[in-house]
């Protein structure tokens, strides 16, 4: 059973976005606790969010702040304690201190390790399993071969991002506040649009407290390879994207994954064109095939990967 997941930061997006393509939703923006309406900053909104997601028949995960200081932990503890009655399918953590806190307060809920959890080895995946982690998001720098090695040798589920910008770095402060010395009056709008950071031909996208790749990771061409390896949890990064992007990319991958699983033609030229048009600076393959994150390898070279 294939799962396609993404993050939804707040109730506003949950209500307004077409999320029908996704099987599972991570509630909360893990990059910024101050994001307006962030599910992690309001128990009533989280409660309503969980109710709605479950009402849609989807899996519902809570995504916690990736880099909490000690001063952030009290409010997170409060949220976790208050979430006892919520039917969460998992809680995502990126911070190993928070992993201890979640295991203490919600030992009944499976834990997912997020992208900033810095998972590089099967040894660490095995250690984390002992702490209740059932799914890991391997570090973006790993190749597909290394991701599969971790899954096979640690016997743990891996979630594989197939599309969207790659989170490259997280910051404990807001980009606008840090450089313009002001708090944006409309955080949500500022972060939704983001800022394009440019140096010569290098580009990144800033969404407030995180810098993302300029190009969109795109694995549409390679979905058969992923399905053949019996990967079953896929992710599209949509934080900082608008409703049209979330819907369009989700729908393309929903259909493509179903076709790939059925052994049918799964990569339509018009889909690639549409994804290119949404991506801004272009598409890349991340580190999956052993190249730098911003390169697009192409299917022929990718097939030289020993596990493809």
């Amino acid at each position, binding site marked *: 059973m294939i799962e396609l997941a993404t993050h939804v930061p707040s109730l506003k997006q949950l209500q307004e976005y077409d999320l029908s393509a996704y099987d599972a939703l991570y509630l909360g923006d893990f990059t910024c606790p101050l994001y307006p309406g962030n599910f992690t900053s309001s128990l009533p909104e989280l409660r309503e969010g969980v109710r709605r997601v479950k009402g849609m028949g989807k899996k519902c995960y809570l995504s916690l702040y990736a880099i909490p*200081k*000690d001063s952030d932990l009290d409010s997170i503890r409060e949220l976790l304690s208050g979430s006892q009655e919520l039917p969460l399918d998992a809680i995502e953590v990126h911070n190993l201190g*928070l992993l201890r806190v979640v295991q203490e307060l919600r030992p009944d809920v499976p834990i997912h390790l997020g992208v900033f959890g810095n998972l590089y080895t*099967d040894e660490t995946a095995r250690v984390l399993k002992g702490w209740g982690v059932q799914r890991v998001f391997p570090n973006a*720098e790993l190749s597909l071969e290394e991701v599969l090695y971790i899954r096979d040798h640690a016997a743990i589920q891996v979630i594989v991002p197939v599309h969207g910008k790659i989170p490259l770095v997280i910051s404990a402060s807001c980009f606008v506040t840090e*450089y313009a010395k002001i708090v944006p009056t409309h955080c949500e709008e500022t972060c939704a649009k983001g*800022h394009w950071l440019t140096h010569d031909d290098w580009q*990144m996208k800033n969404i407030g407290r995180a810098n993302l790749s300029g190009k969109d990771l795109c694995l549409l061409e390679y979905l058969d390879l992923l399905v053949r390896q019996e990967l079953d949890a896929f992710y599209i990064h949509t934080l900082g994207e608008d409703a049209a992007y979330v819907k369009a990319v989700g729908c393309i991958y929903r259909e493509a994954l179903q076709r790939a699983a059925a052994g049918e033609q799964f990569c339509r030229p018009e889909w690639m064109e549409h994804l290119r048009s949404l991506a801004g600076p272009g598409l890349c393959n991340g580190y999956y095939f052993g190249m730098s994150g911003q390169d697009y390898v192409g299917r022929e070279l990718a097939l030289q990967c020993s596990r493809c």
Partner: protein
Amino acid sequence: MSKLMAPGGTLPMAYAVLEEGADVVYVGVLGWSRRGSDVELKDEEIKDLVSFAGMKGKEVRVVLNTMPGSIEVPLLLKKVDMYSGWGVTGFMITDPGCMVQVRKHFPEIAIHVSVGTGITNAAEVQFYKDMGATYVILPYRMWLDDVRAIKRTIDVGLEIFLFKTDKQDGIICPGKCTMSSYFSFQRWVDGEGKDYFYGSANRGGDCLRICQVGWSAEPDEYQLSKKIILKGNPRLWFLDLPDYIKAGVEYFKVPGRDRSDVLVRDIVRFYRKVVDDILASNGGANLETYVPELQEIMKRWASERNRRDDRLVARAKD
């Protein structure tokens, strides 16, 4: 008892810092530390250094703080076995799985949790203590209050860099950054089977400092109007050293494996004097008299850093 730890980016640097009064020297292993190969030592150099340090009653710490690939973990354990056989008593490590394995196979070895873990809270320090850590190296953004809070609640040794950032926010580096490798990343495998990832500090190459080039932001609705540097540089510090010593910090670490041998030697000489003065005066030393000397050192530090950054950025653009 607080100890002064200093870098050995080259063998002459390692000898020099021990001669100048460092209690411990830390050295990177070719391909296994977060710095480039030009400031890492070969195995035979480490063996010679351990012998030299032992004769002077001093110690060597070996930096194995890359995130290895899964298949490299046995090689890391083999390295630990070899170096500990030569007399190395402690290692800097980042990967939690590797820490657990090192603790399991080498129960007497000191494990220093690398700054590459990007720790942000005391609960995380406790996690690494649970993994078998002997010492935790705190990031530049964690200051005296954090040290005191950790020391109050967790029975673990602490290691502090003798440089820190001006503020406690900003990009989480090292630890949560892959900007460098996104733009420039090359791989090759050496004769031992170690995979090099040039462009990724996490994986044993080098960070190519792309945060230090001037970035422009669009839209510029806040009129930033100038090129932005994405990360501030930490600065050498010493005025509140007495408070940190009193708080129980075990290791004070001089940075600079990739600086010149002469500059690092002078920095160690400076800090040795300061620490000895603090200890001899029971915390009552007048440290202001040392300010001009540190200012001169900081100028040289900044000059060498800028040259290094230019060199690394040029490589990223090759």
